[in-house]
C-alpha cells in the first residue's frame, strides 16, 4: 500500500450528500465559511492585481521614451504610487491570507477558522479600502508621494489623496491584523488530536511565522500613519522639520512594518512551495524541521533589519553596521529553504506540470532577487545604487519572481481542490512560458540601468538609457499578455474542466483527504494521520509506528527516515534511493 492509499483509506471523505455544493451567490455576500472567504480573497486580490498591472504598463509606456510624452508627470507620480500600493497591500499580502484561509483549517483537520465571523469582517475591509484608493484618481488628487509616503514630501503634495492613502492603508492593516489573530489561534488551538506541531504541513508553519510577524509589525505602521494623519489634517509637526519634527522617525516607523512586510509577502509562498515541491517530486521533503524553524528565524530576523532601507537617510554609522550584518544574516535561513527544496527535488520523480513549473520558476527567480538583496545589504554598495533601478529590479525579482510566481504555483496546485476541476495543462504551460520570459525581460535589464545610474520614480531620463528601457517596456507588455491565458484557462476550467476527484496529485496532506471542492464543514469525521505530510515514495508504508505513539516518529524528511527504527542498522540515503 502506498502512503497516499494509506492516508486515503484512513480518511473516508464525506459522500453522503453532493459534496461542497454552494450557490454562486454565496461568493458575493457575507459568508463565514473559510473556503468561501479564501476564494473571495483570491478573486478580489486578483482583480486588484490586474488594476495594478494596468498601472504598471502605463508607467512602462511612459518610460519607453526618454521624454515625458504619454502622461503628465503628476499623473505619472500617482500611477507609480498607486501601482506599488495596490500590488503590495491589495494583492500580495491579502493573497497570502486567501490561501491561508482556504488551506489552514483543511490542513489541520478543523471545521473552520477559530473566529469565522471575524474572518468575514477581515475580508470585507479589503474591497472598500481598495475602492477608496482607486477613487482617489477620480477626485483628481491621487496620492503621488511614492508608496512609502515619506514626509515632508507627502505633506506638501496632494492633501486629499494623501489622506485617502492613509485611510486605505490603515483599513488594510486592520484587516491583516484581524486575519493574523485568526490564523494564530486556529493554528495553535484547532489541530486535530494526533497532530503535534511537527506533523503540521509546512504551509501552516509558514503562516504561523507570517501571522506572528503581521501581529507585531503592522500596528507600528498604524501608529506612524496616525501621526502622519495628524500632521496632514490637524497641523501638528511630528514629521515636519519646520516645526521641529523629524521625518526620519517616520521612516523608522514605516520600515518597522514595511520591511517585515516583504517577509509577510514571501513566507506564505515559501510555505506553499514547500507543499508543492515534495508532492510533484514524489519525495519526502528534505529537512522538514530546518524549513519550519527557518520560517521562524526569518520572521524574528525580519523585525530587526528595517533600517537597511535608510542607509542614506542620515542614520549613525554604528547603526548602519548593525543593520547591514543582521540583513545579511537573513540570507542564511532563506538559503536553508532554497537548498532544502533543491535537495527534495534531487533524485525525485519530478512531474513537470504547471504547478511544479511555477514552483521551479519561483526558486530560480527568487534566488536572483535574494542575491541582489545581499548585495544591497552592503552599505557601500547600497549608497551607490540607492533609489536607482537596481533597487527596482531587486524588489521585483523578489515580489514578482518570488511572491507572484508562488501565488500562481499555489493556484495551479490547489485549483482542483478549490473548484473540483483540473486546469488545462497546455494553457497553463503557455502562461508559465510567457510569464517567465516577460518577467526576466522586464526586470533583468533594470539591474544594468540601476548600475548605470538611472533613478527610480522619474518620468524623464537621459537618452542613453533608452534601449534598455524599451526592452523593459516590451517585457511588461508580455507580462500583461501572459495573464490572459491564465484568466481564460481558470474560468473555462472552473466551468468545464475535467473532474479532479479528491486527490488528483496523490498528495498526503489532509486537505486532499476530503472531497473536491470540500464539503461545507470539511470533514464528516475527524481526520486521522495515517502517514506524515511528506512521506512520498517510501516502501513498506504499512509497517511501523503510528503517529499517535507517545514518541512519534517525526514523519518528514530523510533525517526522520534515518531515525525511524532504532533496531535496524542505519540506512543511508543512497540505499534509500536504491530501494525505491
Amino acid at each position, binding site marked *: 500500500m502506498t502512503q497516499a492509499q494509506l492516508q486515503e483509506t484512513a480518511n473516508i471523505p464525506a459522500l453522503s450528500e453532493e459534496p461542497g455544493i454552494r450557490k454562486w451567490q454565496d461568493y458575493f455576500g457575507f459568508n463565514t465559511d473559510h473556503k468561501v472567504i479564501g476564494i473571495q480573497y483570491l478573486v478580489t486580490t486578483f482583480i486588484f492585481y490586474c488594476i495594478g498591472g494596468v498601472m504598471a504598463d502605463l508607467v512602462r509606456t511612459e518610460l519607453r521614451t526618454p521624454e515625458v510624452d504619454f502622461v503628465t508627470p503628476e499623473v505619472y507620480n500617482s500611477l507609480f504610487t498607486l501601482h506599488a500600493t495596490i500590488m503590495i497591500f491589495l494583492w500580495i499580502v491579502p493573497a497570502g491570507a486567501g490561501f491561508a484561509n482556504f488551506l489552514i483549517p483543511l490542513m489541520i483537520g478543523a471545521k473552520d477558522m477559530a473566529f469565522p465571523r471575524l474572518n468575514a469582517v477581515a475580508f470585507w475591509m479589503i474591497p472598500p479600502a481598495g475602492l477608496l484608493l482607486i477613487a482617489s484618481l477620480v477626485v483628481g488628487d491621487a496620492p503621488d508621494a511614492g508608496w512609502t509616503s515619506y514626509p515632508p514630501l507627502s505633506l506638501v503634495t496632494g492633501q486629499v489623496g494623501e489622506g485617502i492613502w492613509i485611510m486605505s492603508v490603515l483599513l488594510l492593516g486592520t484587516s491583516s491584523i484581524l486575519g493574523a*489573530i485568526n490564523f494564530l489561534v486556529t493554528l495553535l488551538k484547532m489541530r486535530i488530536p494526533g497532530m503535534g506541531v511537527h506533523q503540521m504541513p509546512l504551509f501552516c508553519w509558514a503562516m504561523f511565522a507570517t501571522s506572528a510577524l503581521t501581529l507585531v509589525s503592522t500596528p507600528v505602521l498604524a501608529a506612524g500613519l496616525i501621526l502622519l494623519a495628524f500632521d496632514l489634517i490637524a497641523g501638528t509637526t511630528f514629521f515636519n522639520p519646520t516645526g521641529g519634527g523629524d521625518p526620519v*522617525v517616520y521612516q523608522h516607523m514605516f520600515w518597522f512594518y514595511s520591511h517585515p512586510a516583504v517577509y509577510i509577502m514571501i513566507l506564505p509562498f515559501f510555505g506553499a512551495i514547500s507543499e508543492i515541491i515534495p508532492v510533484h517530486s514524489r519525495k519526502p521533503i528534505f529537512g522538514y524541521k530546518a524549513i519550519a524553524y527557518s520560517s521562524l528565524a526569518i520572521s524574528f530576523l525580519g523585525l530587526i533589519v528595517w533600517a537597511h532601507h535608510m542607509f542614506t537617510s542620515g542614520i549613525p554609522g554604528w547603526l548602519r553596521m548593525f543593520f547591514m550584518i543582521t540583513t545579511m544574516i537573513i540570507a542564511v535561513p532563506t538559503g536553508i529553504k532554497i537548498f532544502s527544496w533543491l535537495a527534495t527535488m534531487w533524485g525525485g520523480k519530478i512531474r513537470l506540470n504547471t504547478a511544479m513549473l511555477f514552483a521551479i520558476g519561483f526558486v530560480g527567480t527568487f534566488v536572483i532577487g535574494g542575491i541582489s538583496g545581499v548585495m544591497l545589504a552592503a552599505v557601500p554598495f547600497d549608497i551607490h545604487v540607492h533609489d536607482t533601478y537596481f533597487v527596482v529590479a531587486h524588489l521585483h525579482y523578489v515580489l514578482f519572481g518570488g511572491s507572484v510566481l508562488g501565488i500562481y504555483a499555489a493556484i495551479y496546485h490547489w485549483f482542483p481542490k478549490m473548484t473540483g476541476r483540473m486546469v488545462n495543462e497546455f494553457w497553463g504551460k503557455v502562461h508559465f512560458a510567457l510569464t517567465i520570459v516577460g518577467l526576466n525581460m522586464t526586470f533583468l535589464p533594470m539591474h544594468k540601468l540601476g548600475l548605470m545610474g538611472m533613478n527610480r520614480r522619474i518620468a524623464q531620463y537621459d537618452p542613453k538609457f533608452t534601449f534598455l528601457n524599451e526592452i523593459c517596456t516590451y517585457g511588461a507588455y508580455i507580462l500583461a499578455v501572459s495573464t490572459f491565458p491564465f484568466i481564460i484557462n481558470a474560468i473555462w476550467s472552473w466551468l468545464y474542466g475535467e473532474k479532479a476527484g479528491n486527490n488528483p496529485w496523490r498528495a498526503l496532506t489532509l486537505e486532499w483527504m476530503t472531497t473536491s471542492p470540500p464539503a461545507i464543514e470539511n470533514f464528516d469525521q*475527524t481526520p*486521522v494521520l495515517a502517514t506524515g505530510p511528506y512521506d512520498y515514495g517510501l516502501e513498506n508504508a504499512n509497517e511501523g509506528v503510528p503517529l499517535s505513539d507517545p514518541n512519534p516518529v517525526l514523519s518528514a524528511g530523510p533525517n*526522520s527516515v534515518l531515525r*525511524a527504527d532504532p533496531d535496524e542498522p542505519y540506512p543511508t540515503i543512497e540505499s534509500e534511493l536504491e530501494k525505491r
Partner: protein
Amino acid sequence: MQSQTIDPAKTELNHHHTAEASVGHHEEHPDHRMFGLVVFLIAEGMIFMGLFGAYLAFRATLPAWPPAGTPELELLLPGVNTINLISSSFVMHNADTAIKKNDARGAQIWLAITAAMGAIFLVGQVYEYTHLEFGLTTNLFASAFYVLTGFHGLHVTIGVLAIVAVLWRSRLPGHYSNEKHFGIEAAEIYWHFVDVIWIILFGLLYLL
C-alpha cells in the same frame, strides 16, 4: 525497512477510533475567544509601543525636551487620576472573583464601581485638557502629549463601554455564572491592559 508510517492493524484501530471521535468533532465549537483577545491585545500594545518609540525618538533628537516655552504640567490631578485608574483594576478583579463564586449581584456592584471610576478618569482627563496652557499644535511635546493621552483616553472609553455592556447583559438572570463568564473576564483583561499602558504613558509624559 523503517517505520515511517502506521501498520495496518493500528490504522484499523484508528479507523474505528475516528467514528467515535467524529462525535466530538461536531460538538459545540471550543471557546478560543480569551486566547484571541490576548493575541489581539499584543497588536494593540504594539500600536502604543510604536507611539512610545516615536515619543522617545523625538525626545532624544531634540536639543531641549520639552521644547523651550512649554508650560509645566500640573501633576496633582493626573496623579490622583492615575491612582484612581490603578485602583479600578483591583475593583475590576473583585467583579471577576465574585462571578467565579457565582455571586452575580456582587459582580454587578463591582462592575458598576469600575465603570464609575473609569468615567471619573475620563472626566478628569477632559478637565485637564481644558485647563492646559498649550494646544495640539503648540509644539512637538504638546502634539505628542495630546495624541498619546487622547489615544489612551479613547481606549479607556472603549473599556468603560465594554464594562457597561457587560453590566447591561448581566441583568438577564443567569447570563453570567461561575461557569460562563467570558464577557466579564474579557472586559477585565482589557481593563488591565488599558491600565498598564497608562502607567507607562504617565511615566513617559509626566515623570521622565
